[in-house]
Each structure stands twice: as C-alpha cells, then as structure tokens.
C-alpha cells in the first residue's frame, strides 16, 4: 500500500514538474518581449533582458516612440531631452480598428441573413446553392488575390476601406454561413411558426427572433473573425498596399522589422501594441475566445 502511495506521489511530482517546465518554456518568449519593450534603447541593444534581475531599469520611452506621430521628445537617462522620429503606431491602431470592426460586422450580417434563408425559406435551387457555399470552404484565399487585385485596380478601389471589408467578407462567408446555418436550422420550428401566424414578416422574424436566439453562435464567430482580421497580414498587404495612411498594425510591424531591425526595444514594444486588443479579449472573454477559435479552425 505504502509503495503505491509513493508511486502516486512520484507520479504527481513528475506530472506537475513537467507541466511547470513546459509553461516556463512557453512563456519565456512573451516575457522576454514584454521586459525588452520596457527597457531603455541602449540596454535592450547591448545586454540580455534577463539581466534586469540584477539591474532593473525600466522606461516607457519605446512605447512613447512607437505610438507617437512624426517627431517626439523623450527624456534620456541622463535627464537630457532628445528628439527622435516617432513611429506613428496610433494611426495604424486606428486603421486596424477601422478595418476590423466592419470586416467583422458585415460578413456576420450577410452570413446570418443567408443562413436564415437557407434554413427557413423556400426558393429554387436552394440545395444546390448551399452545396456550392460549402464547397467554397476549400478555396484558399490566395486563389482570389490576383483576380480581385486586378478588379480593384480597374475599379480604382485598391487602398480603400471598402476594398478590404469586402475582401474579408468574401473570404469569411463560407465558414460563417456554414456554422450559422448549423445553428439557425436547429431553432425549433414551433417558435417560428407561431410568430408567423401572428403576422410577423420574414424581416421582423429575422431581426426580432433569429438574431437574438443566435447570439451564442454569433459571439463565437465574432471573436474568431475579429482575431482573424486583426492579425491578418496577407489580405491587408494585398488590398491596402503600403500607403502609411491606411496601413494596419501587422503591416506596420512588418515595416518596422525592415527599417529598425535591430532596435529591439521598438520592435518588442510594437509587437506588444499589436497584441494588446486580442490579449484583452482573450483574458476577458476566455471561454468565448476558445470556442470562437475552435469554430474557425477550418477557415480556408
């Protein structure tokens, strides 16, 4: 009996020990990034971030510099004022918001109405259309980049918000329709029929009944589409171009890598600014976040 208990104890130590080691390894990159972003420029360039244990020395200068506009004044350690060229990440943050909010709301709206029609309305070739929508899940978005880029050039749409919203809508629709259809089609028929008998129009039914009932599915999809669009680089690079006025955070960070490749304090601060919103969502809505990422796991 004693030996089994000792075995369980050893087993427990091994399990907890292994998990703690894995967690430390997993966190080192993020922690190192966070610490470096808070160090003065010279320190970040010349010594490892782990040396802060011996000589802690922190500053928000890197964040000030990446967030500020064209020029910004920072106070160095010696107390003298220094003017450095800012990186204007505030603009990129705003651009990311301008891209992301409609690029989440529009596809969800379009997908929800379509899913409702597929689930509860009668129209010719309904099944065929639905099968086509599902089949489109296999199309990788790279296929669409060349043709759509050329259409946009002809329409003079490249570099506009509308261009990237529509692109994200197109690429996000098959999955959103598929998942929302699965959800909306399971709403009990009685609920809809009694509303219909009460004289509600299809539109009223959709806005007053279907949308509120689908909130769990919509919430998961919202988070998935939000993380997807916010973190997207390829679609933004293709359709927004490299114009700084419309560049989103990921593009900004990428150009920062090119221009300031060894200014680690700036790069790490920039990386943290891009991560800020997804991390807030992650920690405040963790359950929905996980469900959302699961739902989107087959994105094409």
């Amino acid at each position, binding site marked *: 009996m004693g030996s089994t208990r000792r075995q369980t104890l050893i087993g427990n130590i091994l399990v*907890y020990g*292994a*998990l703690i080691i*894995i967690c430390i390894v*997993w*966190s*080192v990159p*993020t922690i190192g*990034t966070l610490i470096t972003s808070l160090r003065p420029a010279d320190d970040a360039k010349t010594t*490892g971030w*782990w040396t802060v244990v011996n000589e802690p020395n922190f500053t928000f200068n890197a964040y000030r510099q990446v967030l500020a506009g064209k020029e910004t004044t920072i106070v160095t350690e010696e107390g003298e004022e220094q003017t450095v060229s800012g990186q204007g990440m505030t603009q990129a943050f705003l651009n990311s*918001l*301008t891209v992301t*909010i*409609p690029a989440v*709301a*529009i596809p969800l709206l379009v997908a929800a109405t*379509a899913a409702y*029609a597929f689930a509860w*309305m*009668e*129209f010719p070739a*309904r099944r065929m*259309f639905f099968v086509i929508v*599902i089949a489109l899940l*296999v199309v*990788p978005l*790279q*296929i*669409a*980049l*060349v*043709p*759509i880029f050329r259409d946009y050039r002809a329409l003079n749409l490249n570099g506009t918000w*509308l261009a990237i919203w*529509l692109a994200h*809508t*197109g*690429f996000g*629709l098959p999955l959103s329709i598929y998942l929302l259809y699965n*959800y909306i089609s399971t709403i009990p028929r009685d609920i809809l029929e009694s509303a219909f008998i009460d004289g509600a129009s299809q539109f009223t039914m959709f806005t007053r009944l279907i949308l509120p009932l689908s909130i769990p*599915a919509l919430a998961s999809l919202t988070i998935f589409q939000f*993380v997807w669009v916010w973190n*997207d*680089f390829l679609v933004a690079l293709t359709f927004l171009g490299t114009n700084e006025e419309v560049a989103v955070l*990921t593009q900004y*960070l*990428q150009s920062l890598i090119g221009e300031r490749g060894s200014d*680690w304090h700036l790069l*790490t601060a*920039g*990386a943290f600014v*891009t*991560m800020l919103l*997804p*991390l807030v969502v992650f920690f405040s809505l963790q359950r929905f976040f*996980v469900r959302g*990422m699961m*739902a989107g796991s087959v994105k*094409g």
Partner: protein
Amino acid sequence: MSEQTEILGRRVGSELLTWLYRIVLSVVVPVVFFIVMRAGFIWLRRGNANQVLIAAVAILWGIGGFAMLYVIANSIVEQLPDEWKSALLPFVFVGPALAILSWYLVMPVVRSLVNSFQDAAAESFVGLDNYVYAFTERVMLEAFRNNVLWLVLGTSVTVALGLLIAVLADRTVGPFETAVKSLIFLPMAISFIGAGVIWRFMYAFRPAGTAQVGVLNAIRVALGGEPVGWLTIAPTNTLLMIVVLIWMQTGFAMVILSAALKGVPQELLEAGRIDGANEVQIFFRIMIPYIQGSIVTVSTSILLLTLKIFDIVWAMTGGQFSTSVIGTVFWRQMFTFRHNGRASAIAMVLLVLVIPVMWYNLQQLEQEAF
C-alpha cells in the same frame, strides 16, 4: 350615379397615392441612399479630417450602409403583390451573400485557372509554361521541400505536444489545469507577424565577444559555444520557424484534445485498469483510439495551415536563405515580378493540394456539433 363616380374617383385617388408612395419608396429612397453613400465614400477617400473622426465615420458608413441595403431591399419587396413577394424575398436574404461569393471565390477560381495558362500580363496563352515553372524551377522545388518539412514536423509535433499537455493537465487539480491551459493557449491570440518579431528576438545574433541579447545564442554561449546567426543557416532556419508555429498552435490542439479526453468514459478506463493494464497501455490502447476523430480534425486543421504558411516566413526571413515556401514564392511572383500567370499557377497548385485535406476535414466536421 355621381356618388358612384365619386367613390370610384376616391378609390382611384387613394390607389394612385399608394402607387406614388411605392414609387417614391422604391426609386427615391435608393437614389438618396446611393448619393449619400457615394458622398461618404469620396469624403473618406479624401481623408483630410481628424483621424479618429475618419475612423468613426468609416465604421458607421460601412456597417450602416450594409444594414440599410437590406432594410431598403426588404421594404421594396414588401410593397409587391404576394406572389412576387414570396418569390423575391428569399433573394433579398441570400442574394448579397451569393453575389459576394461569386465575385470573391467562384469567379476567381475560374479566372485563376485561365490566368495560369497565360503570360505575365494575362494577354496571350502560353500553354503549360507556368505549370512547368511551378514544378521545375529551383525556388519552387525548394518551397515544396520546405512545405513538406512544415507539414510533417509542424503538424506532428503540434498534435503530439498538444496531446501530451492535455493528458498531463487532465491529471492535475482544477485551478492549476486552467492556468496551464490558458498559458499554452495564449499565443493563439498573437498575429503571425507579432510572433515573428518575438521569435526573431529569441534567435537574435550578435558577434562573438559581445553580450548576446537572444535567448538561444545566450544559452549556446553559456554552454561554451560560438554565437550563430540562426536564421541564415538552412535547414536550421526553417526548423526554427516551425518552432514558432508549434508555439502558436499547440494550445489549439491541446484544447480540442483535452475536451475529447474528458469524454472518454471512466468505466472504460477502470475496466482497463482492473484487467491489469498500466497507464501507458491505457493511453495507447483505450484513449488514443477513443479520441481518434478529434486527433484527425486537429491534424487536418494544422496541416491546412502549414500548406498555406506565409506570414511567419515573411516576417522572419522574407523567404531568403533557402526558406521559401509556396506562399512566399506566390507573393514574389505576384507583386515583385508581377507575373500573373505564374502566381495563378502556384495558387492553383495550392488549391489542388488543399482540396483533399479540406474535404476530409469537412466530413469530420459534419459529425461534430458547433
């Protein structure tokens, strides 16, 4: 007689009014809407106003515009006679989705297919030249080789690690399990570009003799080695970038597999233990077969990701130093060399590679509830 005429007249009058109302609704409202939206578009494009104001107007313009589109289309169709209404109303709901899908996905497949047989400017047909390029050019062969590395190592290590952590975490107390899972899942929230920066820093290189700032080189130097420019040496650089993918995706594998593991009936495990099976045997003979479906789902999802991998490589090496993947070669052909034909051919190759995996994945998905 005159009374009848009067009634008739009144009826005609009210009918006329109704029609007038309908015409106003179905012509004037859309026209006004179109003019307002167009003005908004031009104002947004000029973009000479406060940044925050522009962002707010753009968001309102985009979402409001789309919502109004449905409201207007619906109210027009609602005015029609019943038989017209029931025939047209479904298309108010499903039409925008079908239109967008055909523009953004259906037509591009056809057009990319056509483009892939044409020259750089998509003007004349060149037969199979672009496909010959896609399958024989040195950089493409390098990309295929690297993609196979990504696919095999990325997928297998991610799933194995995810499974290992799920099994281990399952044996710990609740709060500890939650904390571990949150930590491992957290990188899912980070963009590939952000992760690229984080890991470039991990792999950072400074000349020998100076203090290292990258963790990997610091460890190497501490162990008595010479610092190495990790991202410039093939094939180590590709392997190190696959580590980034593993770091980001293991949490995803872990969460799905952990949920599946919790679904394994306790009686089954007890029965196994009573029959004298040890924990390793229980894991391989009972748990693994039971959660096979979830393992396949996770594997195929990550496999798809590795086939289309682009951002990580773009942020860390830009495809230099023999790290090209299909995604980066595609990008270079499309925007650096502006060769529509080759870019389309590469995209078609990607489509053909993705189809079987995705198809398989969808069949698995059918069986799972959302």
